[in-house]
């Protein structure tokens, strides 16, 4: 079963009398263990596509199927639940919760779900931090971490709930090239190890060699 299927997905924003077409009849299928790089110029619709795939935005037209669930008609409440359980996000701006330690930030989505046993959750978070090279930083607050370390915590946060689809929006734009490469390698390594699907948005074509497949987008239109 593919991790993501987009069928004729359109997203438009009203703009005065006319409308802005952010995504135009996009068709895309991502197999369940594929890492896809989405590249395109600024304003081409990359973030829009990612948001629709992750249930942050609703499509104007078309169908969105994630891991076999057709989320097209989901209510806001169902989408909230869906995001918590099925997808992992890594945002462009890291946005960790400032008053939570690295470990607690990794655990935050699990705590929001309010289930599971505390000990197992904690053990899992510690294991992730270990893999991300942050074992010694588990007790630190975001303000005490470097930019790269924060981005790594955010990766741990995205992986924590074992999502079927990982969505990453320009993870390296705030980092320098070598750090960017490191973070990208880390994401790819983690995703590969779990054989889950991922879409990684980047405008930096040097990063695309990390992906199994590269798709280009221009003015809201996907190139085959």
């Amino acid at each position, binding site marked *: 079963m593919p991790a993501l299927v987009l069928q004729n997905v359109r997203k438009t924003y009203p703009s005065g009398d006319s409308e802005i077409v952010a995504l135009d009849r996009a068709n895309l299928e991502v197999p369940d263990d594929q890492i896809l790089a989405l590249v395109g110029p600024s304003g081409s619709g990359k973030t829009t596509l990612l948001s629709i795939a992750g249930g942050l*935005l609703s499509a104007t037209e078309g169908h969105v199927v994630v891991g076999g669930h057709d989320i097209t008609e989901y209510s806001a409440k169902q989408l*909230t639940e869906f995001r918590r359980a099925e997808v992992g996000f890594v945002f462009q*701006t890291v*946005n960790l*919760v400032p*008053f939570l330690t690295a470990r607690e930030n990794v655990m935050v989505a699990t705590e*929001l779900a309010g289930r599971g046993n505390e000990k197992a959750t904690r053990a899992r978070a510690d294991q992730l931090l270990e893999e991300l090279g942050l074992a010694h930083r588990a007790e630190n607050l975001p303000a005490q971490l470097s930019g790269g370390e924060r981005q790594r915590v955010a990766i741990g946060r995205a992986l924590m709930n074992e999502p079927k689809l990982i969505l990453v929006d320009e993870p390296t734009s705030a980092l320098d090239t070598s750090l960017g490469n490191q973070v990208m390698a880390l994401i790819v390594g983690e995703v590969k190890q779990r054989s889950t699907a991922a879409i990684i948005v980047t405008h930096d074509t040097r990063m695309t060699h990390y992906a199994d497949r590269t798709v280009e987008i221009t003015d809201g239109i996907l190139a085959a």
Partner: protein
Amino acid sequence: MRLALRELRRSRRRFVPTTVALALLVVLLLMLGGLLDGLYIGSTGALRSQDDELVAFDRAARESTLRSRVEPATRAEIEAVPGVRSTSGFGIALVGADVPRTDELADAAVMGYEGRVGGVPAPPAPGRAWADRSLEARGVRIGDVVRVGPTRIPLRVIGWVDDTNYLQQGGLWVEPGTWRTVLAESRPGAAVGDDVFQNVWIDVASGADPLRVAAAIDAATGTTRTITRAEAVLALPGIREQNATFTQIIGVTFLVAGLVVALFFALLTLERTPMLGVLKALGASSRQLVGALMTQTVAVTVVAFVVGGVVALGLDRLIPPEVPLVVTPGRALFVAVGIFVAAVIGGAVSLRRIIRIDPASAIGTGT
């Protein structure tokens, strides 16, 4: 919930100013309420402790005990009205009392009564008095002879009674003859003859409607004005004004408390909108985030109430006994509930903003 409490613990400092402000408002509310209660209690005890439901004044006295006179003939007319079971004469003389071992005069209200006063035993022998316990703070001891009025009429204190003061003057309960002597000596112009009282309290027969009986009494005598005990309490000088003024100040203080909470949490919400967007993107429901805000509101309020309460109790100790401040559990509960409601309403102002935060804002579309 856990998130909210963690933030409170970790970012304690940012919640401190608001908590302190709220705690000060709690102190203010407890003090204002305590003062209002103290003034009320200290002014009205002598009337509230009466057993009887109705009280008759001379109509010309306009419901003032000190100005009123009820002659024995009038009293006989009252007693003849159907529904009247019995009557008790009552009178007050406001005097200064010379207390042994002290230099200052204590304000006292010498009350002549015939019985039927709750918590006060039967009238003592001439020259003796039951004293209100508040006089203890002015140096009065049981067995003391206090001297009242300009001619220093001696009264021997034979025991304590509680909550029987009149217009902040300590109650001294004596038999009618002693009261008439004190009244004649302290205010010669106001002296009354034998068997004359200022008020007559009326015991209404069970089953009779007090208001009808009161109307019948006034119709029968033609010279009296008969009102209920509750009306007599409110007719005391200043009581209505006091209640209205304090109630307004207390209301405004609750309003300020609500505004403090509303403003603080509105700013806090505004400041952490990006973070709340991220939490929503990660699967936090609006309900969870609103719950977190309300948890913090309640936690801040509870801490503020406890701190404010402790400070108020401390101040209560420091404030001299002359200040009529009485902090009752009922008043504390009133303030607790009031501040809680004000805070919850204040916190709820941010509710809409939280609900409307778009989870998509986390990923930066459109913003």
